[in-house]
């Protein structure tokens, strides 16, 4: 497995990638658009893009992912895609009848310079229906910036400040996380008594129930009215700076809703911060229900610390997920030695700090030195591991090849997970999500200990 990967690390200066740890913007935009109720995402480009994105999202969620495409051919690439998009808008509304179409661009339509706002303005849009767009050239950022851009697109088209006094409600942008995570974020917000709008919200859309009936537009998703109303909220909590901050900042600029950037609430510390932010907002003490959960989590952490303490771990995935995960494994006493994301540094134009700096700061505070890289690839990660082996690898399904090559216990977290099911239904965020992470991590480590134990060392209680 991956036998052609040498241990010796040589500087690669080409800028090319071997086994990428990111993918392109449009898939993130498509995922964010699915979090709008009665929305059909539309990919403006060649039909291969739409096909690949639907394929990948479907494999991760094991649920229908509906989206349309402008189906470019050579002619449209030469003469521009306006005709294709206008035809597509007409056909989509006639045949599939969504309330809203969320168009995202591709590297093709960005390169030829299609002017989306102008095309949309001149398209036939039925009364009461909407078309929004986001620019998502695949040669910038990653699927995470694509998600962020579609959130921005929706806010830019829809959010409005219509009241003299802001409502007692908080916007929560959850970032590129699973519907299971979004449900957990909503549950915590409810327990905290906060009136909130979660946007985007893919719960009920990509984890829709089996009913014996296919619904093109399932019950879930943030409604258009809710997205409009985000402009009237008192505060926006952006969970995960890379996927959510830009949207929150735009809302601040456009509708004067103050933005607060937090980590994706993975692990006890980041969840504490999320709960504290809600506590301040709702002016409400944390109910015992949540305090009990937290206490259980910490109880589990202390009960099991000897499984984790000092274990070396390599982490890869999306930057917002990694920030939370790194903090969490540090709080378990583990030693993260390799941390890599494929997403480039700060989100485009956001002026936010870099991923590497964020992580390094955490590591420095914990007295740990590690390889940390943004904009990296899995070839690099594999070489790092060959030179400095780890006890555990945490990342997306693509890590399974490295795990097998180096015989490392492996925990699947993040996007995509293509070879296991149910993951998208259960959270890794919140106190409960942290419990689940502990279960996954300790199972992986203890299964390995069992597997490697000599008969005489094979123990009943661990």
């Amino acid at each position, binding site marked *: *497995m991956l036998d052609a990967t040498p241990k010796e690390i040589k500087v690669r200066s080409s800028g090319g990638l071997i086994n990428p740890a990111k993918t392109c913007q449009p898939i993130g935009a498509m995922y964010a658009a699915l979090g709008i109720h009665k929305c059909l995402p539309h990919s403006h480009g060649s039909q291969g893009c739409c*096909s690949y994105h639907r394929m990948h999202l479907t494999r991760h969620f094991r649920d229908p992912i509906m989206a349309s495409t402008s189906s*470019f051919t050579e002619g449209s690439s030469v003469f521009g895609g306006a005709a294709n998009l206008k035809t597509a808008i007409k056909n989509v509304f006639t045949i599939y009848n969504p309330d809203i179409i969320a168009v995202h661009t591709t590297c093709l339509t960005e390169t030829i310079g299609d002017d989306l706002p102008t095309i949309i303005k001149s398209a036939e849009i039925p009364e009461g229906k909407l078309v929004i767009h986001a620019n998502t050239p695949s040669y910038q950022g990653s699927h995470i910036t694509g998600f962020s851009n579609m959130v921005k697109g929706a806010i830019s088209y829809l959010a409005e400040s219509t009241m003299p006094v802001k409502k007692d409600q908080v916007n929560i942008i959850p970032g590129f996380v699973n519907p299971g995570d979004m449900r957990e974020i909503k549950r915590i917000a409810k327990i905290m008594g906060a009136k909130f709008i979660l946007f985007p919200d893919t719960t009920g859309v990509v984890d829709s129930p089996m009913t014996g009936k296919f619904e093109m537009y399932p019950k879930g998703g943030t409604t258009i009215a809710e997205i409009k109303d985000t402009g009237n909220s008192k505060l926006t909590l952006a969970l995960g700076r890379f996927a959510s901050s830009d949207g929150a900042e735009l809302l601040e600029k456009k509708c004067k809703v103050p933005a607060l950037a937090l980590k994706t609430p993975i692990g006890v510390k980041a969840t504490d911060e999320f709960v504290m932010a809600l506590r301040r907002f709702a002016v409400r003490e944390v109910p015992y229900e949540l305090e009990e959960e937290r206490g259980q989590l910490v109880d589990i952490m202390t009960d099991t610390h000897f499984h984790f303490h000092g274990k070396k771990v390599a982490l890869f995935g999306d930057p917002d997920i990694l920030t939370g995960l790194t903090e969490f494994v540090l709080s378990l006493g583990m030693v993260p030695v390799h941390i890599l994301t494929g997403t480039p540094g700060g989100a485009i134009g956001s002026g936010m700090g870099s991923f590497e700096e964020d992580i390094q700061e955490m590591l420095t505070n914990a007295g740990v030195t590690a390889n940390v890289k943004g904009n990296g690839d899995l070839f690099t990660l594999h070489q790092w591991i060959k030179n400095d082996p780890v006890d555990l690898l945490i990342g997306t399904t693509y890590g399974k090849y490295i795990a097998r090559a180096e015989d490392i216990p492996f925990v699947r977290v993040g996007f995509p997970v293509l070879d296991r099911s149910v993951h998208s239904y259960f959270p890794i965020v919140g106190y409960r999500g942290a419990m689940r992470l502990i279960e996954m991590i300790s199972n992986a480590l203890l299964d390995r200990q069992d597997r490697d134990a000599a008969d005489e060392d094979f123990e009943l209680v661990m």
Partner: protein
Amino acid sequence: MAVSEEQLQEILNRYPDKVKKGRKKHILIKDSSQAKQVIEANTRTIPGIITNRGCAYAGCKGVVVGPLKDMVHITHGPVGCGYYSWGTRRNKAKSDDPTKNFINYCVTTDMQESDIVFGGEKKLAKVIDEVVEIFKPNAITVNATCPVGLIGDDIGAVAKAAQERHGIPVLAFSCEGYKGVSQSAGHHIANNILMDRIIGDTDVEEAPGPYAINMLGEYNIGGDAWEIERTLKEIGYTVVSTMTGDGSYEHLRNAHTASLNLVQCHRSINYIAEMLEKKYGTPWLKVNFIGIEATINSLREMALYFGDEALIQKTEEVIAREVARIQPIIDQYRKVCEGKTAFCFVGGSRGHHYQGMYRELGIETVLAGYEFAHRDDYEGRQVIPEIKPDADSKNIPELHVTADEKRFCLKISPEKMEELKQKISLSYYAGMNCEMKDGYVIVDDLNHYETEEFIKILKPDIFSSGIKDKYVVQKMGIPSKQLHSYDYSGPYAGFNGAVNFARDIAMSFASPTWNFIVPPWKNEPLLEGKMAEGEEKAC
């Protein structure tokens, strides 16, 4: 169960006029009383229609070129295209030297904005250099994505210079996603270059063994090629190369030495088959290794082609033994499947091939079609002269081959050829339509809306297609079988494959999970327990 013209009209009526006019020509209700039924295929997908089709890049790198294991395939473009075609098509491959098996690697130039503005040629050249230094592959391919063609990167020149620099073949495929109307354009582009640059690029003149064949259009999904090879080798055939599942540059070079080319997926590779016949005089045989009957037929036709008594006898022995072994197992599964109906809508040839296997399980295919086929895949190769090239197909370069002066030799005499053509599918494919029964529906580029509508009318018991529509259909309570990836099972080809398929399809029906869709409270009135004394039970 069939669809009436009125029902079909009703489905089409939902479309805007222009769409209606276009789609009408892509749908046929089989009627054998008509001398000829023409279907439109390989034309543009209407923008906005939810199609299952992919692009030229997907057909070139994703399908044809990608499975070649001893080559490093570089995707020149932004990150996405390389990423999505990385390991997602289950082309299994193994090598004696695992350091020369690059099937689990994905290399992309990861073009950034500056590469789009200033051109990506230098970056591509550097990536090629790095690949050579790190992997030392036998050859390299460069596959272009949409923006590459638009900004005018000359990947041919970059590849040529790199080839001179490194002394290994570096092949450039201009398979930008917007070319053509589907994956099919990419197959064509890939075929031309494999033919032009690899096949025959060697001093080897003799096949490595007797009854030498190439397996064309076999991608080793789930290990299909290995199962077919098992039987072929036992009968005594020598497999020179497989195109392209578990294939390699090293073997592909020698493909000209074979005496017969088998064509499994007609759509993706018939170009190479035809060119091999022109250039080297090697006929091709349309085979189908899906299902017992199809496998038997293919084996018998192969034996007839070589005409060797010992080979014919061995073929019959193997068939008899294999059938005796597997038929009883299949018969058990058939009990579960008998009398059911299927939709079979898949890429190139599977929409046809799986119908036979379904029939052996007692399942009728009431709707079938292809994602990216041409008219000849439906109507048979005799329609090829009738197909007029349109603007989109004209954009795909044609490779004109002529007989190789040194190597051309007719593998069989023209008389023998004519004689065989009467008996077997030599250099001919009759298409899918002739196998379908009257009243059954044939749809080209079946889209989401039509899928839903036809399901409402025909109510199939099983739907077979790909991942994008799988869960759509399952949500309706109808089991759905992926025939692109086999739902990560397989192999489905050959004798053992038939058993696997029968097992998996029977499992789709037999699984108790389907019984839980309706919750008990949906069938029982809530009021029942609340009735006041003396009143009747609620309805």
